[in-house]
């Protein structure tokens, strides 16, 4: 029984982290049809901002939950203005440009912080389940991931900004004709996606360790979760994370983490072949 609980936590944790790292990318992809290959580096910048904040003796919770999204949102807004805006509607060029951006950011981070691993302390102690030890922080990540999804849902569903964003997503020209400043909506949406990426980087910083090239290990998983999920950012991310996270954990459980990741990637390739528009391109169309 105790073992079952620990294993269940592992499963849900894998799904929750997958959703958390994909959400920012999914919002940008769903709303703007842009695949940001620098998403992993946005997360790493979030992690570094958390690490720097901790070094300056800022409260750990503020350092991982408040500083990263704010920092990366500002960076995202600047990048939108300088790069993304020039390439709207050109998906391949956007991918190439953000790929260049990702290399650029890795290089800058290496120059500034060096090729070493920074640590961010884990703010929660471990918990004991029967004879087993589980990480209290894992439980926090699970709860936080669900809360973030819910928060994004509330923002998109209920706020005026969410309404305008959804309208622009459905029909940009009509939204513009009705007086919406669509380019500002795009800018805000991109910054919002960047903030979510930064938040994910901040939350995962105590678990993963922080070094310049770690974004590469996020981007593959986030990327295929978003493509596999399809256009609807929330339902797509949730369903694809559920599917891929489960496959990942089963394979990890049966073999080792490397083959878990490989199984996840293989599953993604098959899914894209069967459903090129993603899960929400076929089922639950028009959901958020």
């Amino acid at each position: 029984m105790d073992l079952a609980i620990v294993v269940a936590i592992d499963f849900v944790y894998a799904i929750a982290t997958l959703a958390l790292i994909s959400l920012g990318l999914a919002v940008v992809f769903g709303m703007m049809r842009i695949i940001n290959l620098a998403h992993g580096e946005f997360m790493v910048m979030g992690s570094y901002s958390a690490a720097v904040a901790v070094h300056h003796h800022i409260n750990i919770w503020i350092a991982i939950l408040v500083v990263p999204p704010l920092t990366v949102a500002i960076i995202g807004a600047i990048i939108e203005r300088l790069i993304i805006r020039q390439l709207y509607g050109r998906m391949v060029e956007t991918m190439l440009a953000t790929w260049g951006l990702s290399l650029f950011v890795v290089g800058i981070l290496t120059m500034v912080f060096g090729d070493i691993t920074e640590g961010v302390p884990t703010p929660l102690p471990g918990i004991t389940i029967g004879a087993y030890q589980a990480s209290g922080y894992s439980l926090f990540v699970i709860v936080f991931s669900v809360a973030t999804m819910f928060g994004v849902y509330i923002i998109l569903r209920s706020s005026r900004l969410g309404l305008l964003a959804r309208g622009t997503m459905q029909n940009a020209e009509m939204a513009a004709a009705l007086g919406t400043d669509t380019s500002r909506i795009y800018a805000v949406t991109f910054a919002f996606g960047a903030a979510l990426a930064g938040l994910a980087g901040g939350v995962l910083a105590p678990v993963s360790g922080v070094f310049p090239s770690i974004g590469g290990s996020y981007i593959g998983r986030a990327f295929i979760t978003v493509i596999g999920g399809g256009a609807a950012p929330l339902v797509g991310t949730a369903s694809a994370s559920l599917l891929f996270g489960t496959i990942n954990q089963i394979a990890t459980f049966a073999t080792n983490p490397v083959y878990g990741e490989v199984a996840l990637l293989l599953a993604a390739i098959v899914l894209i072949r069967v459903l090129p528009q993603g899960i929400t391109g076929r089922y639950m169309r028009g959901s958020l």
Partner: protein
Amino acid sequence: MIGLLRSNSGLVAVGIVGLALLAGLPVTLDLYTLLQITLYAIFAILALSLAFIWGYGGILCFGHSAFFGLGAYAYAVAVINIGESTVPLLIAMALPALLAAGLGYFMFYARISDVYVGVITLTVTLIFYNVINSTAGPQYHIGEALIGGFNGMPNVPSLNIPFLPDDTLDPQGMFVLCMGLLLVVYFGLHGLLVTRFGRVLVAVRENEQRVEFLGYDARLHKLIAFSIGGALAGLAGCLFTAWGNYVSPTAFSVVQSAQIIIWLMVGGSGTLLGPVIGAVAISWLTVEIGTQQVVNANVVLGAILLVFVLLVPKGVAPMITEKFVPWVLSLRRPAATPHQLPQEGKA
């Protein structure tokens, strides 16, 4: 004959320069520079393999390093087991070609559109990278060859004269081989592109649906082109391993894939000469950056990719052929009479 030469004057010039380099460099350059230029030639072959499938086939392969790495590892494993390099070289081309054919069948026959082809190829690269990286330890071996995981495989034998295992190529021989193969690949692809197959392939890039309406099988043309590109990338991988006697999982890395795309973007993906120039220029630049400690190479590579996507999307080569050459010609022939042409149509 003279008319044919004149109408292909660019190609003839490339051939003459190439042969001159092939014959002249080994006797004039010191060993270190010659080794570097051999590497550039290998990378130029790799650039050509992607230029063919991306620039002419319209296949957005974001994970070209999968084929490069597979060729590199296939050669290493085969040559250690066989002890002679002729068959391993062929294996190093055949395996990536098979992988490309399988992947191509998987993607093109499902009519997966361009961006998703990019996603899938990138994912395949990630799979290879993960798997190879995890094979450290004595239990991972193919025959006598230890895969070595993240440590890579050292002491891989060089290429030898076919079927004479003791006659390994010296650096000069290796240079002549790589440079010669580069010329063969360059002119071979040019020749291929003017055949019926090549023309249909370019037409598929322009408008897949229209080509199918005309009765051609676009999927098959893409599949064959993809396999050829895979085989050539495998050849480059094989030469790369034989050049350095070493291969590591970075051959499969995403950065390696990005680098090939950067060569294309800088040189001009719609040409064959451009990617060669791009590969040589960027490789040279990377080495130069590596010798100083001020700027990280990734910063420069990323900035170059960004700048070219945003400002010079066609690359350098079209700028030379469309702007510079006409300008030079117009200097030589000022008698051309553009003022007699009707001007209304120009915006």
